[in-house]
């Protein structure tokens, strides 16, 4: 149960687990962004959930084609903001009224009014931290190792290659039929990537 949950959470971050035979998944190459988007949409419609698209530049509409929904980064940013607000308040209250109270021209040791700028700044700062950390976490980054790197063709994902990766962890995955599906969608090239370092056509 917990293992399944972990697998699903990792899959939502783009980190897929290999199957028992070390198969990581199928990597299909398409000739242009339009075909890739169409293939992603068709793959989702066929019921696959563990798949990802790789292209040298962002493709407008791809998130909708893949069925990704809205980004959840906002929740991380909001959580960071609330934390920052509370931190700003407690920090100033504790330092100026508890730990080291100094009487400055008869003003109160602590008051909300002069504390607001710091509370505001820490809200912004922590919200930014939350947004960046949330973005990295949701993308499964940083990620120095990815079995797809075993594929020589995959290098072109940063140049002129458009790839769709269907992971072996998907319940519907089958090396034969999935490869057939991808070819039918117009894949120029389909290869089986394995976690032990081999990539075969």
């Amino acid at each position, binding site marked *: 149960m917990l293992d399944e949950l972990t697998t699903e959470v990792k899959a939502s971050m783009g980190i897929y687990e290999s199957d028992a035979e070390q198969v990581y998944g199928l990597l299909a190459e398409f000739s242009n962004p339009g075909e890739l988007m169409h293939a992603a949409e068709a793959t989702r419609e066929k019921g696959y959930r563990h798949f990802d698209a790789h292209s040298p530049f962002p493709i*407008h509409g791809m998130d909708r084609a893949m069925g990704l929904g*809205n980004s959840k980064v906002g929740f991380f940013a909001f959580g960071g903001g609330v934390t920052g607000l509370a931190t700003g308040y407690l920090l100033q209250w504790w330092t100026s009224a508890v730990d080291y109270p100094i009487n400055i021209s008869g003003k109160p040791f602590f008051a909300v009014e002069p504390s607001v700028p710091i509370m505001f700044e820490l809200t912004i700062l922590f919200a930014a931290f939350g947004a960046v950390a949330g973005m990295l976490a949701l993308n499964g980054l940083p990620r120095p190792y990815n079995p797809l790197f075993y594929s020589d063709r995959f290098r072109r994902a940063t140049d002129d290659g458009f790839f769709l990766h269907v992971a072996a962890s998907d319940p519907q995955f089958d090396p034969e039929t999935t490869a057939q599906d991808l070819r039918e969608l117009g894949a120029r090239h389909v290869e089986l990537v394995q976690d032990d370092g081999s990539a075969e056509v």
Partner: protein
Amino acid sequence: MADSVDRNSILGWLVDPLSSTRASAEAAFQFTADRRAWLAPVGIGIALLAISAVGSVLDPKQFFFSYLTGWSFLLTTAVGGLFFLFFQHLTKAAWSVTTRRINEALVWAFPLLALLGIPILFGMHDLYHWTHAELYDPSSPQYDEILAGKRSYLNTPFWAIRMVLYFALWTFISYRLYTLSVRMDVEGPGEAGDGIPAQLRSTSAWGLPLSAVATAFCSYDVLMSTDPHWFSTIFGIYFFSGGILAAVSAIALFALLLQQTGGMLQGAVTAEHYQDLGKFMFGFVVFWAYIAFSQYMLYWYGGIPEEIVWYQHRLEGAWAWHSALLLVMHFIVPFLILLPRFTKRSTPILGVMAVWLIGMHWFDIHWIVRPVMSDAATFHWLDFTTWLGLTGVFGGFVMYRLRRHALVPQQDPYLADSLHFENT
């Protein structure tokens, strides 16, 4: 300027300087509702103002304070709309083109506001303490050294001259922005370098700094000088921040009204445009709070008697409740509601928030004006009849202008971009 569009009659000029170009509007951008769309609000507004006129006999002082509140509410909204329009032209904004005609209709308001401002002239003695002659007579017990020092600025003739200047400037700028855009519906944009879009931009470029100065001084003259001992250099920005918030809310509200109850602008104003208007509403909620707090914090910190007097009226005694409500309802609650994406894309929620923020802007002006009159923090029925009466007339004539022309600038070069606009 080519005269492809005729002028309106002299009286009609007050509410729309151009004759109707309805016939040349594309079918998709026609105003399809009948004349009741503007006659009804104007009629209700006039009726409420007639009731207020009775109140002005019964309780003149209350009437003038209520009237100034309602009138300032509309003035700030119109000025805010003018700035929002500048921003669209100066940034060559494509997203907002389909909602720009509503903005333009909102902005041709200054001649009517000048006319509606005349009753305030009869209440100068009640509204503006600095108009009292005995303050400046050294032998009088009412002699006020501080106000005597401010007399070279705060005196009735100079005040009147300044008001004429502000309204002349705003009328001229809004005339340019309104008529050029309507003419473009008929004539087309012209050549890229010096066509109508370029003229709209250059008018906005010089209009922005001049209007900024006029807005700051107008805020001192109309609202800040009701408490003439007090001064705040940031007051003009405060005046602007509430106004532009109300203006963006009004644009969203008019778009929703036309679309949801009138079935107009279908496909032209989409969830994408509402989301962006919602972002601006959210942004100006925060901006208003930022400016309001900046003004307050400096005076709180200084703690100098002549600087805190204005806040003393509002934070001690009965008005403290209004101040607290302002913080919660003008900032915290709308901030949290407008924060997520889905609320800005939901037409019912955005409509409620637009009405709410327009109402809170009036509450803000009421909080500025009314404590000058008395320490008792109450609403008077005249507050509502003058506010809603003036707003009915004002809003009705916005509808009147919308009905006479295409609902979007139909030949704007960025219209196609705006129609296909999508948030990423």
